[in-house]
């Protein structure tokens, strides 16, 4: 019980300090839901050239996302020559591995990929807190028990950060944005040496 209380206190201090540390001021939010539009068009095939850097090794491939229906996405990674490496389904909070190359079928790796791609394709989240600084807004939400901050500049979603104890653990950075498509996406891990870089090719 004591540990639980300490954890809650630390989390409260940590979460609050993240926005304050960046000079944001908390305000009341009228909107209830935060929205990520970048994989929201069910008529579109999202195809990216991917570069994955993991512990000084780099390998590439094709990263594909398709919105099948509301809150239901398919996420597939293939080599440039077309061989499938993994094929996941995200349906609300459910996660299903349709296929994974045997050599990649490691629990630790699967958990990281699951967490990353769940955030990437998730369209809606409940706003827990809202903070502002000039033309920038930070919206705090929770995805499967983890805290995330959605950073907007002039109402455009620029990044999502998973934050623990006031520190960014994982960052999703969206750039070269046109309409509701992010042509460049980077997923940066700060606690392990893993970076995923995606560049739109369609």
């Amino acid at each position: 019980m004591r540990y639980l209380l300490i954890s809650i206190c630390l989390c409260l201090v940590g979460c609050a300090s993240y926005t304050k540390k960046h000079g944001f001021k908390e305000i009341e939010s009228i909107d209830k839901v935060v929205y990520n539009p970048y994989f929201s068009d069910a008529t579109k095939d999202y195809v990216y050239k991917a570069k994955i850097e993991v512990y000084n090794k780099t390998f590439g491939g094709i990263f594909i996302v398709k919105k099948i229906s509301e809150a239901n996405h398919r996420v597939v990674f293939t080599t440039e020559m077309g061989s499938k490496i993994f094929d996941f389904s995200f349906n609300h909070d459910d996660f299903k591995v349709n296929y994974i190359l045997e050599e990649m079928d490691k629990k630790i790796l699967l958990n990281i990929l699951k967490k990353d791609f769940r955030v990437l394709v998730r369209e809606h989240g409940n706003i827990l807190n809202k903070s502002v600084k000039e033309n920038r807004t930070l919206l705090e939400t929770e995805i499967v028990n983890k805290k995330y901050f959605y950073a907007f500049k002039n109402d455009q979603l620029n990044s999502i950060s998973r934050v623990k104890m006031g520190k960014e653990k994982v960052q999703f950075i969206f750039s070269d944005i046109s309409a509701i498509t992010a042509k460049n996406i980077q997923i940066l891990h700060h606690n392990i040496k893993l970076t995923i870089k995606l560049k739109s090719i369609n």
Partner: protein
Amino acid sequence: MRNILYILFLLVATVHSQEKMTTAEAIILKEKIKTQAAETKTITSDFVQYKHLDFLTNDIVTKGYLAFKMPDLVKWSYVDPFVYSVIFKDENLYINDEGQKSDVNLSSSKLFKQLNKMIVNSVKGDMFDDNEFEISYFINKKYSEVHFSPINKKIAKYIKAFHILFNSNGDVVEIKMIEPSDDYTRIVFSNRVLNKTVSDAVFAH
């Protein structure tokens, strides 16, 4: 009623567009392809690759060119929509991903060595090994089509079948690699030139 008949007619016509070859026709085709493959010292060709995933609205289209040199050097170069090349050489894959070079050694994995050997062999179309594949022969309009289904269960987990389309000379015009899920990669060749001098420098890395 007329509509049903029309649909039935179309179905029959579709089935007939890929007709099974007689044993005699298959033997002649096999010999022609094997002779053609044996005489092929080099190949250069353009290609268009269609990655078909059942859930996508459109296939993913990539384009590039291929170089092959006897006995087993193959280079796939993609130029659109990204620049990427992979050289199959000895037991290594040499990759150049938009200028960033890396290599993969396959010697420790018997399975990957076998898979890569198949990809290299499929370029010439000569995969007539009854111990490795269940082989069936079809006539597909003006082309001949041969289906190679790996017998080895470990390999079949990666590739369900190769469908290779040959022209009347016994040269490969199209390769389709079908996954166990029925998603596939289809490679269509054009401007294919055989036995023109191809420098070793093409396969330097």
